[in-house]
């Protein structure tokens, strides 16, 4: 029973996740825009932030903070920050 619970806790979300992910179109990160990366990465933990929430300088600081906290790649961080700075 204990093992069954363990399997259920992981197997069900995994199966659903893989099924849904299998339908996604794969595009390399290098070809993506900052707006697309902003929409895909921020939402992994919290809602996508409004570009207007901070000024250009603040986005630099927040970008570095989030690169470390969320372990974003250098390229993802650069593109996302550039998008937020251009759209605020």
């Amino acid at each position: 029973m204990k093992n069954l619970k363990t399997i259920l806790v992981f197997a069900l979300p995994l199966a659903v996740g893989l099924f849904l992910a299998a339908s996604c179109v794969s595009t390399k990160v290098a070809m993506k825009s900052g707006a697309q990366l902003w929409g895909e990465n921020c939402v992994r933990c919290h809602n996508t932030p409004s570009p207007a929430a901070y000024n250009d300088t603040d986005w630099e600081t927040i970008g570095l903070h989030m690169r470390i906290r969320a372990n974003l790649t250098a390229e993802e961080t650069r593109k996302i920050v550039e998008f937020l700075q251009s759209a605020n």
Partner: protein
Amino acid sequence: MKVRIIVVLALLSCYTVAWAQEETTQGYKPSSTQFMIRGYAHAGFEYQAVDGDARSTFLGSSFVPIFIFKPSDRLLFEAELGFFYNSRNEVEVSFEYADVSYIVNDYIILRMGKFMLPFGTFTERLHPAWINRLSNAPLGFGHGGIAPAAGTGVEVRGAIPVGSAKLLYYVYAVNGPRLNTGVDEPEEAGQLMFENLIDNNNNKAFGGRLGLLPFSNSSLELGASVYGGTVGDRNDSLYSNVGALLYAFDLSYVRQLSAVRGILDIKAQYNINNVDQATYFEEELDGSFTPYTFNNSSNASFAQLSYRPTMAGNDIVKNFELVGRYSNFQAPEGAEWEQQSTQWSFGINYWLSWRTVFKVNYQSTVQQGGHGVPAGETVTTNGLFVHWAMGF
């Protein structure tokens, strides 16, 4: 003297105005040194009925500022404090973390200090009230749980693109957890205490996490974590060799799907704690001590599903979010803190902005054993939580 001070202040004011006008004329030029205060706050109302015995209370605000100091593009200092009211109506200040990070290159980040441990993802990424979709942490997580929160030491982390996929790695050495031997708190003998700012032995604890995001849209992340070391005090011959090995497995899937016209968010984590078997002592009524031991293995897990109709045509509807969570906690059989608990939580959230949420949650917890529950009895606690949380 007063006249001199007034003259100096007046001259300073003139200079400041002139400087400000010059800045306005020439455009704002930011300095390379940046400082920000971010963080979050939350408050609310809670109603709980423990086997029919109801109680309710408003909860005082919690204020959790995060100080971020960026002296260059490669250096970042961050520190988080927490201000809370405890059950004795006192303001409690917690020191969550304070660490310096240095960007070595595109793939390596070096951190030192007290930092959130990447043991699974709940503690490091999901616990802040404005990010957590429910009003509290799953069973076994958060303060007093079996999941480690922070550690003091050094860490290397980074993200490596691998084709369309992405690999996240984390490796760290910290002071590690400390074993509660039950001398001061007999009912907690055998538990791990994770706040260990000064090491109680010379053996550092090592840990790490690997996270794989197999798809280029970063929608799915699968992670595995391990953390272990000696937990006994070096001066305590009875426990100096006691060690612990902790594992965690986590899953995250977040994707906006046109088929359901919104964002589907699935999170799950399973923690296993194994502590070497040791002998503890229970004080009897006559003052004598009876030795006892137990298989010190515990686990905690949760699975959460939330859905927000972000693609709905109505602006009000798209701000609603539905969430459900199952969590489970198993403490060792034979320990003073033995318990088996399961919990179901359901909630409706309304997002006032991207970082401000109003939550209404219902929660039912069934607990066998543990604090305040007589041996062999089962207690059911039903609760209603109305909270707001804001990130800033």
